[in-house]
């Protein structure tokens, strides 16, 4: 590791040690918890640690991909709070930097970095899940006599993570007949006229996502990302470059694997003996993901690209995440079902992990992508 990287790691570690709240915050998917997580994001931003990889003019440090990975390792090792702004920070922001206008970046990124505006995603619909290109919620071009032209959004979006408490959302809307070229990428306010948000209780009991009803919601042209009709290409780009890497950093799994080994060590006894191999395999999996990610980052830094290979990683980390947490719960035995407290973090993590094989393209979709695009099997 270079001296610069080691210095950056030390700075991040020291800052986190001094600032990470003792004990878990209330769940980000409650009103109180969301407010506490927003306050935490603001604390991070004040230290210019909320978006280290972004350019300085938007609140970042222009950190390299490797530095970002180091930041993530330290962040997870410190058991710091989940990122309430995750969807905006890791999905929307890279999209804006690539496809948005300078005006959009200047207007939207700084408040996102400071958590003054927290974003939810609005992709799925009741009839468009894995088959995302079949979205029906519409964007109709209007000139209402206002000073600017714009679009009227109507329809239903669902499974929108964080939408119960977030400020704004980004999504795909049908603006024309073409399956792929009739989609437009638009931004809208969750408290705008015509928007109704119905929180949905998740498996864990909290309102981690929501249904969004749109009834003629006006969006100005300034809030279209890229060209109208280009939404599919832009949205799919999310998986097509280094963002495929940033969806889940290895820091999460390395930290969880270390905690799992510690849990195993303290457990002792026959239960622990019988679970030893699963603990080892989970640790090896976390190590493999970490090494693989750093190698990919080095390849990208040298000008390489990441396409369908991102699907290999998505299946791997999401299955690993479930395995890690299942093993921990099996070690906890009769205490595994208890909510709350320090040990309850394993249960929370487990419930969170169960969503991984479903979101961001189900693992079935990913395996088909791997088979067709990487292995060359026929459609």
């Amino acid at each position, binding site marked *: 590791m270079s001296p610069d990287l080691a210095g950056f790691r030390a700075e991040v570690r020291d800052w986190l040690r001094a600032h990470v709240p003792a004990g878990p915050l209330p769940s980000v998917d409650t009103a109180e918890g969301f407010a506490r997580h927003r306050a935490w994001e603001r604390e991070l931003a004040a230290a210019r640690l909320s978006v280290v990889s972004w350019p300085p003019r938007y609140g970042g440090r222009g950190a390299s991909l490797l530095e970002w990975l180091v930041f993530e390792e330290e962040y997870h090792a410190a058991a710091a709070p989940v990122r309430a702004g995750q969807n905006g920070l890791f999905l929307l922001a890279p999209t804006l930097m690539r496809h948005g206008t300078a005006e959009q970046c200047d207007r939207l990124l700084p408040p996102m970095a400071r958590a003054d505006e927290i974003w939810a995603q609005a992709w799925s619909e009741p009839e468009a899940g894995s088959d995302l290109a079949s979205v029906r919620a519409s964007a109709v071009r209007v000139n209402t006599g206002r000073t600017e032209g714009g679009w009227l959004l109507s329809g239903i979006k669902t499974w929108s993570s964080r939408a119960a408490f977030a400020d704004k959302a980004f999504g795909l809307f049908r603006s024309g007949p073409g399956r792929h070229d009739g989609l437009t990428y638009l931004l809208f306010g969750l408290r705008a006229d015509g928007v109704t948000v119905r929180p949905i209780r998740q498996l864990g009991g909290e309102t981690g996502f929501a249904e969004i009803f749109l009834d003629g919601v006006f969006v100005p042209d300034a809030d279209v990302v890229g060209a109208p009709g280009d939404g599919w290409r832009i949205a799919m780009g999310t998986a097509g470059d280094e963002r495929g890497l940033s969806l889940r950093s290895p820091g999460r799994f390395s930290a969880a694997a270390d905690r799992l080994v510690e849990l195993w060590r303290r457990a002792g006894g026959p239960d622990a003996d019988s679970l030893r*191999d699963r603990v080892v395999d989970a640790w090896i999996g976390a*190590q*493999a993901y970490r090494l*693989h990610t750093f*190698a990919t980052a080095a390849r990208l830094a040298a000008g390489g690209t990441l396409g369908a290979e991102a699907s*290999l990683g998505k299946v791997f980390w999401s299955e690993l995440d479930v395995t890690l947490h299942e093993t921990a719960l099996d070690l906890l035995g009769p205490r595994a079902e208890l909510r709350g407290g320090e040990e309850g973090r394993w249960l929370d993590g487990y419930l969170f992990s169960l969503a991984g094989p479903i979101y961001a393209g189900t693992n079935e979709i990913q395996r088909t992508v791997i088979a*067709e695009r990487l292995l060359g*099997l*026929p459609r």
Partner: protein
Amino acid sequence: MTLTRSAEQQQFASSLHDLLAAADVPGAARRWADGDHSPGLALWRKLAGTGVTALAVPPGSGGLGASWLDVVIACEELGHHAVPGPVAESAAAVPELIAALADERLSARWLPGLAAGDLIATLALPPWLPYAADADAAGLVLLAEPGAVRLATAGTRHRSVDPARSLSQARGHEVLAQGPAVAAAVARAREAGTLACAAQLLGAGRALLEAGVSHARQRSQFGRPIGSFQAVKHQLADVAIGLEFARPLLGAAAIAVTEGERTAARDVSAAKVACTAAAQRAARAALQVHGAIGYTQEHDLHLWLTKVRALAGAWGSQAAHRARVMAAIADGSLAWS
């Protein structure tokens, strides 16, 4: 040193692949299985011409003194083509053992021949390696124990599930080295052989994936290639994922051994566990995709299927390697590195 292969390493791997693809390795393996080692030994001489047998031999003894990343690249390609013979033993473990014993007399006696490919060597290293592989094809058989390294002769010969492989008891005779320093040399040979064996498994797994994909594209049932069925696609995708995430563990282990890092034993064991699991998954899927034709000795697939099963238990069982990983990580003194 990085996990990413250099241009030279890529070139080395692809030239080995080209050489082996043109050499009718399955034919040589079948003859080897029938007890005729001559085409296989001719293949080893060709490999020696590319430097494969000299990689793990120090430069002072006629070798190349290459990094373990280079040895891993070579052994992966030999596994990819199911090359018969004691690959991990002759190309990695024995040269490392003799070099680590640091006895000029022994080095001069064996290393130049190993480097040049004139000598094929094998060894038993109990308890991880209770038998010597392919001793009947080897010009040098050793018995390596923590207290002593002995010259050995092949005792009772056993057949392996891999028809192109045999296992023999190693009867120790002349003591070549003994004393407290020997244990460290034997340990180094053990890491080297395990690493090379893991690389063979990764290569064999890759070949099995390729065979499965190729068959799934060509074989039609119900009027369409079976590779268009999702049940087939997803099995092969899972194989690809397993191999993809075993590879960086193997590379990291090779670097750790080359640089003498204190995580080396942990990393070698993690690599062996992951490469074995990935290769076994590849074998199961390749057989399933081939169907009945894959379950015959008429089809070459069996050469890879059986080699994976044989190597899965060689150079330390999965249980032994998992125990070694746990001993290292539960100790807590080894940070993520």
